[in-house]
């Protein structure tokens, strides 16, 4: 479904991502591990079309997307829930969700169904429906960001560090919900510093270091790997 070949991205004058190749198949649940500054966010922003790679190709559902604008990539069925959430702080929770469904704005029935689904996933969003997004707690904002990303009914969902800055109990809750989203049929690519959490729920993982993939494999093997344990699991 998603194929990256030898992708490199610059930011200003520095190369952040170099020679990244990876592949994600329909239905997969894949994690991208790496420490702060490894280039996870840059890689995700490149895939979503916010940044343009200076080298290599990105292919989504058989179409080359590395020159497409971000809004066109969303229309193809790829949705990024970004680091820092990028919600619309002065719009209500409900309007944020409606904006999430912008690309299918004429499909009123589908939108209603999706709102029902995300509210079932995150009941707090129903309670907070009319509240401004900027007034939610960090955990609630993260739930809203995931919900908004789901509103476009994506085939591939990129989640960039959903656990960042959240209390362990909320991280656990969000991890369960993300797993549930994958089980309902959405392919998920999850970027995490919290390797412990990510490797427990995903099937496969890539390890990114200084902008390059240094390791890949099934999650249950990575979790026992010495290098991964030392670097990311604090063992």
């Amino acid at each position: 479904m998603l194929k990256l070949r030898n992708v490199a991205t610059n930011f200003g004058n520095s190369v952040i991502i170099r020679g990244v190749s990876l592949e994600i198949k329909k239905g997969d649940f894949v994690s991208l591990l790496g420490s702060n500054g490894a280039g996870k966010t840059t890689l995700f922003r490149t895939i979503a079309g916010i940044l343009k790679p200076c080298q290599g190709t990105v292919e989504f559902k058989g179409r080359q997307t590395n020159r497409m604008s971000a809004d066109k990539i969303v229309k193809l069925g790829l949705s990024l829930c970004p680091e820092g959430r990028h919600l619309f702080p002065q719009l209500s929770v409900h309007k944020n969700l409606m904006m999430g469904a912008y690309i299918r704005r004429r499909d009123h029935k589908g939108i209603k169904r999706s709102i029902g689904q995300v509210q079932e996933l995150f009941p707090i969003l129903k309670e907070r429906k009319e509240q401004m997004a900027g007034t939610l707690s960090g955990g609630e904002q993260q739930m809203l960001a995931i919900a908004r990303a789901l509103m476009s009914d994506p085939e591939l969902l990129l989640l960039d560090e959903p656990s960042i800055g959240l209390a362990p109990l909320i991280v656990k809750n969000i991890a369960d919900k993300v797993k549930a989203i994958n089980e309902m049929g959405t392919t998920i690519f999850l970027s995490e510093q919290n390797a412990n959490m990510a490797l427990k729920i995903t099937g496969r993982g890539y390890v990114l270091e200084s902008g390059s993939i240094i390791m890949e494999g099934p999650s249950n093997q990575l979790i026992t790997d010495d290098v991964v344990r030392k670097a990311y699991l604090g063992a």
Partner: protein
Amino acid sequence: MELFLQQVFNGIMLGSTYAMVALGLTLVFGILHVPNFAHGNLYMLGAYVTFFLISLYQFGFWAAVISSMVILGVVGMLVERFVYRPLIGQPHINMFISAIGLLILLENSVAVVWGTSAKRIPHPYPDTVHLLGITTTQQRLIVIVAAVIMIILLQLFIKKTIHGTTIEAVAQDREGAQLVGINVNWVSSMTFAISSAFAAAAASLMAPIFMITPTMGALLVMKAFVIIILGGLGSMQGAILGGYILGLVESLGGGFISAAYKDVFAFGALVLILAIKPTGLFGKESN
């Protein structure tokens, strides 16, 4: 008392056009985060377009106003596309310089093509009206009613429709907007069209009352900046309320103290309000 009501009425009329101009400016500011100094000149151009449609092509008043709005809407889109969009991502100073360049270009082009002498659109509604003890012209009443209707329609568009909400979404988080599939360039284009069309409407409605000259936009754009700073940058309610406050301050100050100093009252009000509330009336604390 009669003089007071008369001045309040004039203040509301002035305020209606100020509110329309300031609304357009604040919308564009919210999207680009750079003040469009040429906004007053788009206003001026709108008045000239209306003038020529009426005097050269015998358009009726309303047909001319609406055509002028459409023409200026297109001009606004072109300005966005060719003056501002190429500068996105560059230092803000570049957009400032471009804005001032555009201001000079528009003002002087109009002066060269149509001359610097003041022109006046013949009064379409010259009849006087007696209302609550004051005497005014139908035209002045029309300015108020039309402005209020347009302001309400714009609010409904932005708050109640999905396309209108995209303007708020882009203003609040540009990247977030891209990530939900909004074409940010298209939204910028639409916002400039609305902003310029509003300026054209305000200018056309006022044109039968005041003279039109190539420099008519210069002071107005300063006042519009006063209004949006007064109201709190990026706030639509602030722009509307600020417009009416400025209109009333000018009109009452001009009527009761000295007409020669009416602009002093306007800018004095800015200094005073910012001294008391530095974020403006509806401004949010910066974070």
